[in-house]
């Protein structure tokens, strides 16, 4: 067993497995009918607008914590002292937990 984690071996092994998998991948059928209707991305219904914002990636996450965000937005007074105060409270909590454990 090696004492420390070795990134070189990881990369070497990754390359080797990638190469083997790629050879297997090449045995598959690569042809398809270009510039035909089958290359148009599937969608049933009215075509939506094309430029979907990247922030939509986290939509479900924000939706889930909507109540929390609204609560946090409400209590935020844009006062630096509040942030420092919260930081001290959390730091004390974390240090106390570590000490107790």
């Amino acid at each position, binding site marked *: 067993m*090696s004492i*420390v984690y070795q990134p070189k071996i990881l990369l070497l092994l990754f390359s080797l497995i990638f190469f*083997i998998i790629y050879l297997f991948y090449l045995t598959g059928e690569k*042809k398809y*009918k270009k510039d035909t209707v089958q290359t148009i991305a599937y969608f049933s219904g009215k075509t939506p607008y094309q430029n979907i914002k990247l922030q*939509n990636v986290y*939509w479900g*996450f924000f939706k889930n914590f909507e109540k929390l965000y609204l609560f946090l937005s409400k209590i935020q007074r844009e006062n630096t002292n509040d942030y420092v105060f919260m930081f001290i409270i959390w730091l004390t909590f974390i240090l106390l937990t570590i000490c107790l454990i």
Partner: protein
Amino acid sequence: MFNLILKFILIMLIIIGSISLGLIFEGIDRILTAKMQKRVGPPILQPFYDIRKLMIKESIIPKYAIKWIFELSPIISLTVSILILFYIPIVGKSILGGSNDLILVVYLFIFPGLSIVLGALSSNSTYSNIGAQRLVINMLGYEFPLAIACFVPVWLVYKSGFSNIFSLNTIYTHNIWGLVNQIGIIGLLIEIIAIFLIIAGELSKSPFDLDTADSEIAGGALAEYSGRNLAMLNLSEAVKIIAISSLFIALFFPWNIQSNLIIMFLIYILKLFFIIFISLTLIKTVTSRFKISKLTGIYWGYVSLLATIGFLLVLF
């Protein structure tokens, strides 16, 4: 030179073995699911036939897709899924065991999902975009309870005074069930319940199959994939089943490591079957899909709470 050939044979054996085992377990999963739903079900080798069929089908690339990302993502997903197995002790110690390999393995598990997200986003399809978004939310959800669950054996090994606590080999060679009292055993059992849910989430199976929801978003992240690209993704999923189950076997079920290799391998298969049956087949059959707006709350609320309660009981 002989040593090098031997190593290459070992690597090939792990690649072929993990893919075959994953596909066989997928076949068993399909049969058991069918039996529970009072259907006949497909033959056990159906996943193999599916892969063979996909390899001879056209690999269509959408017109406005970013071709190289779209094609590369499935290969990277499969490569990393196989790579993880080299760091997990399966029969005896792992092949590439290091001092912090548990952290490495937890991070490597992000890559297969992340490459599917990139591939889906590069396809320029609405359904794939929604699927990718859902997969990101799913990943954000299960990572937190996964971290808690992985920390429990580390804590037990640390408390018992062993060195190299983040090494999977260290955890595997010290049976954690012997390091806890009666309350701790209850804690570990609660932790296992959380783990079954985490595995279902990690593999995007029901009730966490939001990213590929066929009836809602037509396959979601995989909507535009076909032919050999889809075959690679299916293989990646099969290997991931083996990898994630093997990780939790090494962490929570490390028994019978003193026997001979064949018996150890048979016991490993039995443990694998037990984990896959509960976390995939059983949970998938008896539950229906969650809403996307509830998913993170379920992971960060209920599953994390289960994992934390388990951890607190282990602390006693």
